[in-house]
């Protein structure tokens, strides 16, 4: 075992985190998506999970809030095992979490204000005098969208939708916020806006953040710690500097965004389809 591997292993089995996966394996049929993963998320820190598309990042983040249950292994929140709880008990635990979904997952039939109020109405008795307008205004102002209360998701741009979804995710003042590909599909400026919001929430409110992304610029900006997943296993685990200098060629290839020699050879050797091969339509 190399020194880098030893360091990764030590981080994996650190059980002092607010949120932990212990030997979690997830299979869909015969397809093993997570393979004996152990990961501990430190309180108040931002842990970023990187990896190529389809490596199991979203499956991993959904296990942290038990939206998916592991095939084997355990999930802990504040030293309490949660993967074996009934949905009713889990619902109480989930109020400690905020989850920003990849596409926002805003409710189409509700406007921005009603989307933000949704989790509040589910868990608190809301009356006309309870200052809900002020609350919605505050949450939207935190993501820079005050004034968009009456906008329906269909009328919002991709970046605005993610920001409203973020406002909804922080509606219950969660201790942990989980971000699934927060910058995917956004232009560089909107992506950086989301990164700044993640930092603001983490530093300003002291929340624990877990970000799943394949956007390395975003990862370097927000991460206290970066974990790389590859083929269902943790390949590297450390701070940004450690990941930048990681000796594993797969890690280097991913963080530099380079195509592999084999893939390059396949691309170059494949033929180009000529227009003359097709008969034009009448």
């Amino acid at each position: 075992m190399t020194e880098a591997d030893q360091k990764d292993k030590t981080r994996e089995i650190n059980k002092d985190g607010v949120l932990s996966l212990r030997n979690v394996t997830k299979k869909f049929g015969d397809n093993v998506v997570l393979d004996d993963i152990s990961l501990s998320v430190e309180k108040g820190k931002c842990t970023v999970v990187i990896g190529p598309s389809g490596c199991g990042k979203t499956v991993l983040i959904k296990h942290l809030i038990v939206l998916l249950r592991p095939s084997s292994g355990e999930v802990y929140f504040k030293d309490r095992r949660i993967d074996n709880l009934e949905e009713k008990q889990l619902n109480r635990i989930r109020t400690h979490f905020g989850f920003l979904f990849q596409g926002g997952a805003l409710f189409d039939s509700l406007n921005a204000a009603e989307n933000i109020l949704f989790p509040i109405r589910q868990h608190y008795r809301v009356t006309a005098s309870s200052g809900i307008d002020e609350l919605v205004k505050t949450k939207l102002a935190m993501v820079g969208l005050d004034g968009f209360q009456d906008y329906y998701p269909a009328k919002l741009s991709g970046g605005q939708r993610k920001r409203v979804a973020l406002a909804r995710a922080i509606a219950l003042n969660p201790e942990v916020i989980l971000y699934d590909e927060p910058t995917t599909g956004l232009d560089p400026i909107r992506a950086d806006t989301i990164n700044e919001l993640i930092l603001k929430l983490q530093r300003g409110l002291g929340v624990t953040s877990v970000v799943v992304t394949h956007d390395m610029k975003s990862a370097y900006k927000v991460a206290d710690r970066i974990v790389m997943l590859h083929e269902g296993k943790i390949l590297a685990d450390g701070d940004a500097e450690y990941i930048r200098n990681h000796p594993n060629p797969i890690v280097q290839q991913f963080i530099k965004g380079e195509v592999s020699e084999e893939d390059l050879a396949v691309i170059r050797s494949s033929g180009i389809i000529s227009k003359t091969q097709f008969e034009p339509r009448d």
Partner: protein
Amino acid sequence: MIATLGANTVRDITNIGKFSRFFWQAMGASVRSCVKTGTYPLIWAQMNLIGVRSVPIVMVTGAFVGMILAIQAYDQLAGMGLEEHLGVLINISVVKELGPVLAAVMLAGRVGGALTAELGTMRVTEQIDAVRSMGTDPIRHLVVPRVLACLLLTPALIIYADLMGAVGGFFVGVVHLGINSWAYWNFSASGVELWDVSIGVIKGFFFGGAIAVISCYKGFTCREGAHGVGQACTEAFVASFISILALDFSLAVIFKAIYAIFWPLRSLV
């Protein structure tokens, strides 16, 4: 081949198990929600979408059923000189069988398809996961209002279908074919009992429940993508249709047995 058969059997049994679990969760949550006033606004909204907006299509269906029955049965009855009994034949057919079944089939298409498409889209866009992630039971929030709205309003819609079936039959039988109005209604009143009307309305509870639970289940379990949602809608309609027919047969047998127990002599009349 044996392996494929075995795999298919296991898959089918698993699906039946998943549906049964979903059914009991939905029914349990529906009973609990009846005493929780917080769910009432959601149920009210679904009643408007599912029930009120279905009134025109159900009324049109009922009217055509009555008119078609009148046209088809008149010649047979007139051949025996019994054309004045047309009202009994139409009204008893409409209130006991054709009204409830055809209204339910229309609802399976209009309401069931919409429920599956809506919930299926919510599933593929992770909105159902979002409901769960915020500590809310998606069955209580999404399924219960739809199930209760269908359960409560399908019988009401069947009454509309029955009413329009009677009106349609009257229009063709009396206005178009010239049957004596007094005889038409007199024979109808003597032949159709409250029991017959009640059977149709009671069937509505079962049909409404089946349509709602099947459609919601298909929406909750649909596969990714537009194709997945489309396929779920098709499967929901087919399953609802078969369930309506199977329930109709089962309920007909049960109600016949009940009738024979409580009114043993009337069946001889």
